[in-house]
């Protein structure tokens, strides 16, 4: 699937609801893929999918909540809009705690649904953008030599060049050369920006 194609993934067991939703979204110029069950969607799922999921919370077999759990296990970041029936609000609340973007009750007004879908798509784009930046930062951090990484960590911790030189038992001049290479490789001129960048992927670095 092309990464730039945003798709609304509709997972709904009721054929009429599924069909009508597909027509409706197509007529609003949205890319649509429909799935009659959670299982079918899971089989089709890949982590380069972009867009959002419109998911019926009550389905025979695997229900919406279960699908959400499975997607979370796969570290999916696709925003989920739960579609609930009458009296499913408690379920919807649980779903939100599990990270759903939003929920909407059947029967809904088209404007409401489209608005929620729009917001979900926007969120997805944001996430993807952020995710892209983080991947770039991580890539650049990966290009640093061990010595450069050591120097960068001390820079971020706020140590002056003089202190770094003394602690590592190298000349201040050498520290400056390393320092300019780090800045160059990380593509920034400002220490503050460098700090922000590294902090944004800190957990990833810790994890690895």
């Amino acid at each position: 699937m092309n990464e730039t194609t945003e798709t609304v993934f509709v997972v709904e067991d009721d054929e009429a609801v599924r069909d009508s939703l597909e027509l409706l979204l197509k007529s609003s110029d949205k890319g649509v893929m429909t799935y009659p069950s959670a299982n079918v969607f899971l089989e089709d799922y890949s982590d380069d999918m972009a867009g959002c999921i419109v998911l019926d919370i009550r389905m025979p077999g695997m229900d919406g909540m279960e699908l959400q759990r499975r997607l979370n296990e796969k570290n999916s970041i696709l925003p989920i809009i739960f579609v609930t029936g009458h009296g499913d609000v408690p379920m919807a609340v649980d779903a939100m705690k599990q990270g759903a973007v939003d929920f909407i009750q059947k029967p809904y007004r088209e404007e409401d649904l489209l608005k929620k879908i729009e917001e979900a798509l926007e969120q997805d784009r944001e996430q993807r953008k952020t995710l892209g930046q983080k991947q770039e930062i991580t890539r650049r951090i990966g290009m640093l030599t061990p010595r450069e990484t050591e120097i960068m960590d001390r820079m971020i911790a706020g140590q002056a060049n003089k202190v770094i030189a003394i602690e590592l038992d190298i000349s201040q001049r050498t520290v400056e050369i390393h320092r300019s290479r780090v800045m160059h490789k990380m593509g920034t001129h400002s220490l503050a920006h460098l700090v922000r960048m590294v902090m944004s992927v800190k957990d990833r670095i810790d994890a690895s």
Partner: protein
Amino acid sequence: MTEIASERDEATILLVDDNAQNLKVLYETLKDRGYRLLIANEGEKALALAERHQPEVVLLDIMMPGMDGYEVCQRLKANPITADGAVVFLSALDDVDAKVKGFSLGGADYISKPFQAQEVIVRVATHARVIQLERELQARNRQLENDQTRILNAISEGIYGLDTEGQIIFANPAAVAMVGLASEELVGRNFFQLHFGTPDAETDDLPALSTCREGVAEHQREVRMRRSDGSVFPAEYRSSPKLEDGQVLGAVVVFRDISSELESEKALDEARDTVATQRDQLAHASRLSTMGEMAAGFAHEVNQPLTAISNYVRVALRMVAADEIDRQLARSTLEKIEAQSHRASEIIRRIRSFVKKPATGKEVITVAALLEETRQFAEVDARTNQVAVELDVSAAVPDVLADPIQVQQVALNLIRNALEATRSAKSTEPVHVAARLVNRDFVRVEVTDSGIGLPENAEEKLFHPFFTTKQEGMGIGLALCRSLMHAQGGEIGFDRPHGGGALFYFTLPVAQVTAGQPQETIQ
């Protein structure tokens, strides 16, 4: 002077002779033969002894001073107490006249003097035996008569003996009491006139008339019989002919007043009606409560077509707003809208028909259609429990006669239980609903689940009210189902399938279609 010479229950022989020598000879001849021997030497004494001891045989000398043997015999025969004994005359008069006279006075036999011992012994033995047998027979007849009378008197039914004209020739005390006339007043009255106020000549259809005339047995209930005071009581009677050699001699009519019986029956009918009404009310209440449990599911179910409709309408509006209308797409979209609105109204129709009051009464039902509707109805629960329902109705299943609402209620109850049991056991096997013909008269519907099965003591408890295995169950469901099935003339029960789980079944009577019977089938 008397002498008792032997056992009490042996025959008693009275020897009567004025001649002591004769008496001695007779005594010697008959002693040690197991008789009780009594002796009298003159008539008066003989009569007194006979009255006290009722001898089977009297050996009576004819020629005696004072009262002679003929007179003794006459007086013995005249007294009912002594009349049945056998009198054997003893006489030297061996002439025919004397014998004839003796026989004409009721004598049984005659022995000429001088006696031959053997002759005396044999004749006495014969007569003693004959009289004993006669007495036994009479005693038995009396006993029987007493028994019959006692029975007739004790019987609470009225009993009449009628002749061929319907004249009453016998009436038992119960008849007397019921009619309000004395027995002697009843006998001789005409049965038809007395009890039905119609002489039998007027009509052919009076009770017991054909029995009296043609010997045809009759039995009727709730005929109205008159009492002597003109009041009327409802009666049941049986009349049987009295026949002799194929001739009808009359009839025996056995009848009883059934006023209180009719009242009891009426009370029983009323009680039955009340029970039936209450059962229907309970069934209805239970349907409502089922609907209450299913309400959320129904709302969800109705929301599906409504959601689809509103989506399709939006699509249609967009098309209308566009410059070029794709007619083909517009048409198919509108058709989809129509289909979904039918779907919604169908769900609502099902709910309404299920809760509508009261039960509609028995109809001819197509089993497959009813079960399919029930299955759709249970879809709500199927979704909730995430267990499917599979339907398997044999093509050979004929229509049944039952109340469709109540049958559906039972089926739905069993299916919902099955879905719940399956889910509780964390199974995803579908619930299986099958219908087949078990014999000529019954269709059997089976609901099989793959739950944990039924407890050991299920037989005793399962269908009892207030027994439940569910946390929130009332225990009314199955008890009510059983009562509803009985009302349909069917049965309900369960089995434990080999593969585990539980199987519940109910049976419904096949509709016997007769020509010209209006056929209402559920489509």
